[in-house]
């Protein structure tokens, strides 16, 4: 059977090109790899190789022809036992593929991804009830996190912890204290200072069926490893059509610490929260830290778990339960109120609660909503609270531009516009790298006074 040689597309964007030069003539014998012609695309001159063996029959497009559409039959090739001179050109050149593509694009534009996601039914999970009479103990966030890891390691042999100084040193911030003694060096592993490398090894181990908990000494250093968090861990399930999972937890302190300067003081919540394929959790108190870290370790998805160094040592009430696991993706009302909602997460929740107490003294009843999970974000909880109070202030320890606060403002505009009695207002850090000097650092970070001021503004007081 005669073979049609068609004008090839030689780059992802090529639609037509110039047939610059024929390197064979009619009657020539060719084999696989023989260069047939030179074709000029918009970017380069490319060689067009033969795939098949045969004899060049009729050349249908002369050399020097410009604007030859991709898919046009440019020559015929006679196969074994055929007479090249008798081969006829096809009646009409077919152009396929391009047509299919344009149909698809139309389909997509019919319904945007955001709209589609919004309409999808979500499971209505709430925090499990703490049984009446449960003993409440006082625990630091640090101990709650350690207990969460220890409990999950006892429960599942596949769970292991790796990172810098997590084993013999007992954790740079003592979050992994005691784990080496209980679980041994096979499951509590000190790594060299090589974030990109061990984030990749952890991700590969998760692909291979383990449940790694990778500790970054701080998330500032995870910038070295962000390629594996995003390109390797977050995208794999989607790119593999759901066959290859990556159940891993990347955890460590995030956000400003104290007097450590710009390179060690940044909140990466908005960075990771913008990536589909990741779960991003940023708890505030000990109960949420423990319950959500346990949920994160059990999740089949890659989780970025953002802690805060300044909160590690704070004491909170923690229910003494055998298995304290909380639902991912659900915000929590930390304080009920009716006049205004202060939305926050991580260390900002403490600031918001303090502001709410002071506002109460002035007769303003503020609700405080802790997002807890930044992705997927609990939009329903934000919109429900907005419907109740009609005013939202977002308190976020982080840069203001393209922040979680920006996202909350956008959600309220798009889906809660009729409920708004005042503009959604952001209270974030100043839009500067964090300075070292005590007075400047203090001035750059969010504080209670600024939250109070913003609340009063939206309450027109």
């Amino acid at each position, binding site marked *: 059977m005669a073979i049609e040689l068609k004008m*090839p*597309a*030689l*780059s992802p964007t*090529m639609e037509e090109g110039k047939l610059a030069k024929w390197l064979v003539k009619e009657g020539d014998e060719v084999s696989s*790899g023989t260069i047939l012609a030179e074709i000029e*695309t918009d970017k*380069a*001159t*490319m060689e*067009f190789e033969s*795939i098949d063996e045969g004899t060049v029959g009729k050349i249908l497009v002369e050399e020097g022809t410009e604007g030859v559409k*991709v*898919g046009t039959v440019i020559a015929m090739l006679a196969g074994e036992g055929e007479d090249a001179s008798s081969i006829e050109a096809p009646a009409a050149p077919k152009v*396929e*593929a*391009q047509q299919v593509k344009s149909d698809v694009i139309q*389909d*997509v534009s019919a319904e945007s*991804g955001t709209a*589609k*996601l919004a309409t*999808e039914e*979500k*499971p209505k*999970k709430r925090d499990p009830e703490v049984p009446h009479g449960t003993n409440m103990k006082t625990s630091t966030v640090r101990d709650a996190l350690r207990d969460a890891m220890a409990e999950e390691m006892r429960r599942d042999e596949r769970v292991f912890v790796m990172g810098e100084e997590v084993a013999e040193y007992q954790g740079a911030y003592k979050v992994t204290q005691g784990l*080496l003694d209980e679980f041994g*060096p096979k499951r509590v592993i*000190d*790594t*060299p200072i*090589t974030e*990109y*490398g*061990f984030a*990749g*090894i952890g*991700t*590969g*181990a998760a*692909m*291979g069926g*383990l449940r790694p908990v990778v500790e970054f000494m701080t998330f500032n250093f995870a910038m070295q490893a962000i*390629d594996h968090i995003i*390109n*390797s861990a977050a995208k794999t*399930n*989607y*790119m*593999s059509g*759901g*066959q*290859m999972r990556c*159940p891993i937890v990347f955890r460590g302190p995030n956000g400003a610490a104290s007097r450590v300067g710009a390179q060690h003081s940044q909140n990466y919540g908005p960075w990771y929260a913008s990536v589909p*394929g990741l779960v991003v959790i940023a708890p505030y108190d000990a109960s949420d830290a423990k319950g959500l870290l346990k949920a994160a370790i059990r*999740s*089949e*998805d890659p989780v970025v778990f953002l802690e805060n160094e300044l909160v590690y040592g704070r004491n909170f009430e923690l229910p003494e339960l055998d298995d304290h696991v909380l639902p*991912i993706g659900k915000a929590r009302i930390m304080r009920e109120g009716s006049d205004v909602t202060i939305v926050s997460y991580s260390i900002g929740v403490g600031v918001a609660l303090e502001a709410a107490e002071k506002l109460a003294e002035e007769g303003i009843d503020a609700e405080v909503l802790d997002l807890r999970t930044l992705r*997927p974000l609990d939009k329903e909880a934000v919109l429900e609270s907005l419907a109740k109070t009609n005013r939202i202030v977002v308190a976020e320890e982080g840069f203001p531009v393209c922040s979680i606060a920006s996202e909350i403002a956008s959600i309220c505009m798009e889906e809660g516009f009729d409920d708004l009695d005042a503009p959604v207002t952001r209270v974030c850090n100043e839009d500067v790298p964090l300075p070292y000097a005590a007075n400047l650092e203090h001035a750059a970070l969010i504080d209670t006074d600024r939250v109070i001021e913003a609340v009063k503004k939206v309450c027109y007081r």
Partner: protein
Amino acid sequence: MPKTKTDAASGTTDTPVTPATQDDFDLGSLQQALEGDKRYKADKEELLKLYEQMLLIRRFEEKAGQLYGLGLIGGFCHLYIGQEAVAVGLQSALDGDKDSVITGYRDHGHMLAYGIDPKVIMAELTGRAAGISKGKGGSMHMFSVEHKFYGGHGIVGAQVPLGAGLAFAHKYNEDGGVAMSYFGDGAANQGQVYEAFNMAALWKLPIIFVIENNQYAMGTAVNRSSAETHFHRRGSAFRIPGMQVDGMDVLEVRKAAEIALEYVRAGNGPVLMELNTYRYRGHSMSDPAKYRSREEVQGVRDKRDPIEHAKAELVELGMSEDTLKDLDKTVRKQISEAADFAESSPEPEMSELYTDVLVERY
């Protein structure tokens, strides 16, 4: 796992042993073993099987190039033509039930060598629902957990620590498996490769690092990008023994793989293999490959082609020309069917846009 005080406490030694104090390290020990006996002794049938696999890859890639030219394959498409003996020779030595494999974006050949159906690979290239990634991955992002093939990674060098992670899982699970991580001479200059070398050697992970040196990192020849172009020496700073192998001779590749596997399976830690090979086509379909001469490419094709080499050897062993011709026809038919399947099967449903982002629902 890493050396810790607990190891010391177990009584094996009083002072912690660091790799640097061991004097049994010999960078060239495996190379010497290979020099002694370079080629795997394949019988006629074995060699025919390897030849068939290489031919399947060659014809598949030629067809993929053709479909790309017709606009049926989009984006980036990196062909493996010329390098077939590497994947086929190495893969043939692995234990398919235990060992895992990971590679970069030039991944079609490795999947075919693993026995994955050409239809689902080709359908992935054309972006169809029947593709191995449901059409959502494309040429560079294909996986088969069933075959322990872990991708298909588009970021140059990422597969090296990921592969070390697979090896970590083998060791952790004590399943006897070895991970094989393929990467190119270009990726060999990435920092994360050396981070992975360090940890793999430190923790004695069961992994073979395979550098497919096809002489060009996209358009940059190795001597323009690499201070040390003998890539098999690149592990010496981490006490990883290296091997330099003719990647155009499938039987030498097979033999080298056996030597490396024996060393790694014995718990000695990683091996670094450099396979000298050559890609006939451009880096990707849109690369005109002006950085080398036509004569250079033709010279390799004429003198070192792995498939022609194996074919000549088969004839020498008494394989009839007719058998080889029939095999060629069978392979062509198989590829032609794969291409028809890939062209005619439907594109993914619109609902697939939103599936597989996360595994669980929150």
